[in-house]
């Protein structure tokens, strides 16, 4: 098992955002988390690499407990890619330098090795020709692809995607999704929070439906879409389909 999440709890003031979330992820699997906004999906992702510290519960990456205070969280984070909703590319760095920074400063690669690796990853997301461009000179879709390249370059054991297409204009969503589809096919382990039901249906090995800080239901897409076990799941899927269209 690559990732195991056990009974995660997180509270912001009075509001309990995560109320005991448990699930696991096998190597090479893609799981998609869906659910209404404000139900703790993003918080869950951030608790997994401890960008947000969970109040209670444990997270294991290949049997190393990364929620243990003894663990060097920077070493762990280097093994977990994170793709943000609003990209968060480093504004002052070119696409190439965005991808190189972690390679040089975290992984200790030489500048030459890092450049070679970074160019490879930029090519993989179709942006080799944009290596010298600054984030502000790229479209949203291109920025998100660079941020995926930045995550990929670190050679992560899994990548967490936090609504990677939600900040994009509709016509730019496709290019990001197709990069993600390719990634999933290549065997990358992925945990994706998204409203893109088409992506969820065609790529996910399993879909997790979350609401109000708990997992309501999880299962293969076929089952979840065709025979949801829980009325809340059915209700959510009906509404999201109206909003985004059947195949996304």
């Amino acid at each position, binding site marked *: 098992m690559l990732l195991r999440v056990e009974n995660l709890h997180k509270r912001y003031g009075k509001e309990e955002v995560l109320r005991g979330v448990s699930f696991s992820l096998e190597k090479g699997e893609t799981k998609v988390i869906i659910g209404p906004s404000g139900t703790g999906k993003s918080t869950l992702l951030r608790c997994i690499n401890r*960008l947000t510290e969970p109040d209670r519960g444990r997270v294991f990456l290949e049997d190393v407990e990364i929620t243990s205070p003894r663990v060097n969280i*920077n070493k762990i984070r280097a093994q977990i890619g994170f793709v*943000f909703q609003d990209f*968060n590319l480093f*504004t002052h760095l070119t696409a190439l330098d965005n991808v190189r*920074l972690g390679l040089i400063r*975290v992984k200790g690669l030489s500048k030459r090795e890092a450049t070679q690796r970074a160019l490879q990853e930029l090519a993989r997301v179709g942006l080799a020709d944009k290596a010298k461009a*600054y984030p*502000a*000179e790229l479209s949203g879709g291109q920025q998100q692809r660079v941020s995926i390249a930045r995550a990929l370059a670190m050679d992560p054991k899994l990548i967490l995607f936090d609504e990677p297409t939600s900040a994009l204009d509709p016509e730019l969503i496709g290019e990001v999704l197709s990069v993600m589809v390719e990634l999933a096919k290549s065997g990358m382990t992925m945990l994706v929070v998204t409203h893109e039901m088409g992506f969820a249906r065609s790529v996910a090995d399993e879909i997790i439906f979350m609401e109000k800080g708990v997992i309501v239901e999880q299962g293969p897409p076929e089952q979840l879409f065709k025979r949801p076990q829980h009325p809340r799941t059915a209700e959510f899927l009906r509404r999201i389909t109206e909003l985004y269209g059947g195949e996304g």
Partner: protein
Amino acid sequence: MTLVFRWAWLPRLTQGLALTLELTALSMALGAVLGVMLALARVYAKGPLLPFYGLASAYVHFFRGTPLLVQLMALYYGLPSLGIKLHPFTAGLLALTLNTAAYQAEYFRGAIQSVKSGQMLAARALGLTRLQAIRYVILPQALRLAIPPWSNELVYMLKGSAVVYLVGVLDLMGQAKTIAAREFRNFEVYIVVALFYLALVFVFTVVLRWVERRTHIPGLALPGRA
């Protein structure tokens, strides 16, 4: 009345100019180093480092809340009573540095805080330590954003440094005072000195504009600036 200007003033004024430049450059540079540290403490010192936040804040409030002149006098005339006798130049440089550091700290703090919070998140998510994130992601952006207010501070200090003549430093102002007193040509001497300051300010402004353009990065600017 006729105005009389003499070439003979120039060597002294040039010496004064050099001292003014030296004082301004040194105090601005040292003040920048101290200012960045103060700003970092004010923004990032939390948990066990919280005392540094308190110290930095107290420092900034004290040095921004009292006149530069008072600080200079306290250092030069006050410290000897504690057995510390400073050379006029040293006292001047120290007062200017301590004072500008407090102002620069505020400019840097504003700049650091205007870097979007997602930048730190993304850096930490990659596995960079907080210190690395500050060094490689936050400061390179914040320092660029701080150039315009920093330029203002430089212009201010260039002129403000004139207070050091009061403890006997022969900077541009000190030399002017000496010449004026000896030759009874107050008006003329101060006109010349004013022009010197004006020229300096102009040169510095042009140079910093150039630096700002050279270091400009698309998409990196404070709201309202292109």
